[in-house]
């Protein structure tokens, strides 16, 4: 990238001297932006994979294994990608680069909160997410050497206080991630129908209604146009889950309810990992 030096101009002109300096500053900023976009894209892809993995939970005969794998992958995302973002952001104004990292952050929140719901049946809070986005730099990290930001971090590490890098998660991003979560919950409810998990759609319906109520009370449009758009989708998702519950109820009405799950289980195609059970 030092190639622009090749451009020949009157180097003694004060304008040119000043612009040479601007060139360096702009390139540094754009380069950082580019690196963050790439890292954010990695976070997005990995988070999407975790969500895909978590959707296998519902049909799986070894649910624990799925969750464990998801937890591992979440840690992987955090340690290998989000930590790098944190290092890039040290000493920076996160809002300057927010557009670069926003898609990744939202998708990560979506994946993490989905995992959190499947393990605890509750909604993750902002402090809980934030706590996973803080990285102790005391121990050396292998990928750290590559970028400029890292060397700065290393330098400050040699000073007194224990060095910490963090990705500050703006409430707006957290909110958008939670709104996206509900789309995945809807998909979970629909697929639950097919595999005989008759209780889950009802449970999800309640949880999603609580989130919808939250957004309605807060007012999506009051937050941002993006939130408003996602709340509209959320409303549709809730209706879909309600329709799923309805289907379960009217179908279930035709036979004793305790047989319901058995019937669905029978219908389930023999999974390749049946022996594991």
């Amino acid at each position, binding site marked *: 990238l030092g190639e622009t030096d090749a451009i020949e101009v009157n180097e003694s002109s004060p304008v040119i001297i000043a612009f040479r300096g601007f060139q360096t500053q702009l390139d540094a900023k754009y380069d950082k932006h580019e690196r963050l976009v790439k890292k954010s894209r990695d976070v997005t*892809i990995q988070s*999407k*994979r975790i969500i*895909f993995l978590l*959707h*296998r939970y519902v*049909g799986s005969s070894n649910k624990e294994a799925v969750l464990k794998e998801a937890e591992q992958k979440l840690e992987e995302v955090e340690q290998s990608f989000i930590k790098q973002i944190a290092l890039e952001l040290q000493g920076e104004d996160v809002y300057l680069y927010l557009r670069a990292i926003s898609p990744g952050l939202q998708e990560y929140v979506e994946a993490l909160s989905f995992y959190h719901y499947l393990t605890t049946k509750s909604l993750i809070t902002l402090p809980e997410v934030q706590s996973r986005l803080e990285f102790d730099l005391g121990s050396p990290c292998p990928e750290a050497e590559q970028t400029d930001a890292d060397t700065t971090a290393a330098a400050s590490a040699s000073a007194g206080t224990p060095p910490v890098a963090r990705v500050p998660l703006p409430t707006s991003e957290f909110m958008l991630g939670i709104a996206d979560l509900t789309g995945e919950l809807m*998909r979970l409810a*629909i*697929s639950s*129908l*097919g595999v005989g998990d008759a209780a889950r759609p009802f449970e999800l319906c309640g949880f999603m209604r609580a989130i919808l109520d939250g957004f309605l009370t807060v007012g999506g449009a009051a937050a941002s146009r993006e939130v408003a758009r996602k709340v509209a989708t959320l409303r549709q998702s809730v209706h879909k889950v309600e329709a*799923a519950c309805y*289907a379960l109820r009217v*179908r279930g009405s*035709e*036979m004793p309810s305790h*047989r319901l799950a058995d*019937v*669905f289980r*029978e*219908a*389930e*195609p023999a999974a390749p990992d049946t022996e594991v059970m």
Partner: protein
Amino acid sequence: MEAARVTEVFCGFQKYIDSEQDKRDEVRQLVKDLEQSAREILAVMQIIHTDEGLKTISKVCEKARHHFETVRAQFAVLAACVPPSEYFRFNDHWRFVVQRLSFLAALIVYMESEMLITKEEAAAILGIKSSREAGFHLDLDDYLTSTLTLASELSRLAVNAVVAGDYSRPVRVASFVGDLANGFRLLNLKNDSLRKRCDALKYDVKKVEEVVYDLSIRGLRPADA
């Protein structure tokens, strides 16, 4: 002198520009013919949703396969008209009909063997290449889209099979569609239109499962299915 040279050069360009327009017209016409063939094959295959159709599946499929001969001839003309390097230049023209025909091929193969058509088989039935490098080909996105259309058609078949008194077919369809859904769950799709249709697959799975459920609670589900 420069003027004369410029005139000469630009006259050559005009010929080139005109031939471009002609090619686009030709492609449009050929695609129209393919659409007609697709409509005919669809009409043949619709019979599977009726009582008699379910009893003469092999004959229906044979007849449909017969129509594909025309399709292959039509694609041969189209492929000859579009140089391999310009496949993506005109791709939007034939994308839809390729998806449609790939779906019909998949439906035939399923009705005959209850197996998922492979991308290679589908390409062969359509008379086009299977890989991008080989020339006029069946693009992966289009093949995947066609398998989603298949799932949707089979969910309808499950319903009509029950009406026709065939109680084991829905169970087999459920298993097949479930497998397909599992396959798609493995994919991390980038293509937005494909993604949306993939969401619809969940509803097809749900529908078929409900049919199996209805059979089960009434003891109508065959023991061996």
